[in-house]
């Protein structure tokens, strides 16, 4: 009995971690939607949703109830299997990258021996990351690039011209901007010397003060990453796959009720993961400069403040998304392609070459 428990305990811990992370992210996503409506309201001189609960804080649950209770309409001429598969691909691929992000420092001061049956005998460390894998950055990029299938298949299987146009635009846009994104990420990887996200955060902690956060040596890379991240997540000003003024609703025109809700959630989860990526790569992740002078490294308050800092940085990026949505108009499609291929990609490559030269002379 105890042997079995000891054997399966690590798996149970990982499973609980994954469930908690998904739950937390979905909650944050629900309130991002509410926050978006509120902030857009303020930008446009309106009030925003304020009827359900005080200041409208129960609005996400009302929305969810509405999504569940709406009629589920399926077009007759659609390819049924792919039509049902597409939203699940979109949401799964949006949620999967979450497991590799480190969201806090290692806690070393708690002795976990008090757990029953001695399943955690002599364990002192609690790593605040679910899966620390060797190729974290590549994992995130690859899962994001698989996520485009959700949109493309939704566009194709609906058997509607607006959906097809949305799917085509989306795939062209994703392929184009992925290159610029990769070029900007490699700059950070060169400086950190690792593809592991935890190591990238540690590399930023160990850097000299003038490049403590990689946003300072990699500012051009940061700008390129941010712009291509906006394009990857199909947000304004790059929301051509779902441009409502020209394509009705783009790839999800024919989707209704809960299947539409899955696409909707996938979009916001993508926003969230991309914000986490920007935080970890360029803003030092959970690392707050100077905090180790106030608290011991590895203690609980240090970890809590670090987690708070991480969430704060991510929320800053989410706010940036909403702010830009309230400010900028949409690109035209040829402008989008020209911008991606003729400006963003060369800029990212130039930044990469500069970084390579600097790293080469630093390591001599």
């Amino acid at each position: 009995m105890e042997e079995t428990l000891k054997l399966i305990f690590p798996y149970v811990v990982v499973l609980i971690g994954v469930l908690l992370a998904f739950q937390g992210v979905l909650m944050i996503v629900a309130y991002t939607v509410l926050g978006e409506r509120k902030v857009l309201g303020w930008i446009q001189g309106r009030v925003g949703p304020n009827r359900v609960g005080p200041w409208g804080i129960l609005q996400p649950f009302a929305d969810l109830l509405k999504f569940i209770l709406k009629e589920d309409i399926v077009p007759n001429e659609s390819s049924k299997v792919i039509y049902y598969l597409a939203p699940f691909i979109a949401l799964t691929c949006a949620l999967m990258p979450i497991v590799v992000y480190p969201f806090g420092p290692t806690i070393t001061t708690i002795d976990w021996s008090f757990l029953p049956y001695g399943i955690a005998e002599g364990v002192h460390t609690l790593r605040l990351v679910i899966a620390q894998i060797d190729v974290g950055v590549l994992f995130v990029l690859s899962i994001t690039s698989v996520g485009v299938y959700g949109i493309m298949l939704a566009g194709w299987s609906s058997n509607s011209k607006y959906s097809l146009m949305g799917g085509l635009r989306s795939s062209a846009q994703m392929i184009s901007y992925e290159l610029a994104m990769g070029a900007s990420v490699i700059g950070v990887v060169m400086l950190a010397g690792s593809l592991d996200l935890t190591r990238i955060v540690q590399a930023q902690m160990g850097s000299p003060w003038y490049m403590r956060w990689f946003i300072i040596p990699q500012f051009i890379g940061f700008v390129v990453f941010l712009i291509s991240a906006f394009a990857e997540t199909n947000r304004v000003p790059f929301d051509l796959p779902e441009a409502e003024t020209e394509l009705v609703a783009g790839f999800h025109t024919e989707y209704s009720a809960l299947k539409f809700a899955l696409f909707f959630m996938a979009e916001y989860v993508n926003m969230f993961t991309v914000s986490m990526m920007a935080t970890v790569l360029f803003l030092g992740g959970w690392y707050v400069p100077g905090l180790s002078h106030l608290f011991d490294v590895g203690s609980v308050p240090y970890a809590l403040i670090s987690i708070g800092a991480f969430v704060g940085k991510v929320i800053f990026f989410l706010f940036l998304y909403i702010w830009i949505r309230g400010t900028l108009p949409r690109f035209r499609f040829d402008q989008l392609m020209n911008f991606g291929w003729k400006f963003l990609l060369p800029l990212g490559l130039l930044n990469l070459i500069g970084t390579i030269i600097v790293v080469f002379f630093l390591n001599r």
Partner: protein
Amino acid sequence: MVSTALFFLFAGFAIMCAISMVYHKNPLYSAISLVGVFLSLACIYLTLAAPFIAIVQILVYAGAIMVLVVFVIMLLNLDDEPNTSRLKYLYALGGGLGIVLLAQTLFVVYAVSRTPNQAIDPNVTVGNTLDIGRAMYTDYLLPVEIVGVMLLMAIVGSVVLARRLSQPQLELVIDKEEERISEEINS
């Protein structure tokens, strides 16, 4: 134990997806099945302790090549392929080829399983990014350079192929509309 179960799960999935790829007449269904094969092969690479190759497999095959293929299928709006009656002999040829290859596979499996079992040392891993990068830029520097030149040639070639000889000037509807309106105002 877990990795054994995972291997057989993904191996079965890969074979099923491969068969469905050949079976389906619709190119899009074939493409989706092929993506399934690629993803399950990536998971099998993970059980073989090759995380870098696994991730690159997803990134290159599932994320780039197949996205392009699906894009082309959607762009050309391909339908199911028609049943051609004049190529009946190809089915016999293909069936014979398949039987020969399967027999060969069985022979290889038999021959390999008769040799003493190669034991894996679980502490030795060669699939990490560090190992691959070190081997790539020391022993294999020349092949990597050649591959780089080849990719450049592929880029140039595809640009030449995609370019039409007389490129029609893109005209936007909105420009014509503006012209019309200004003419109306003038007249």
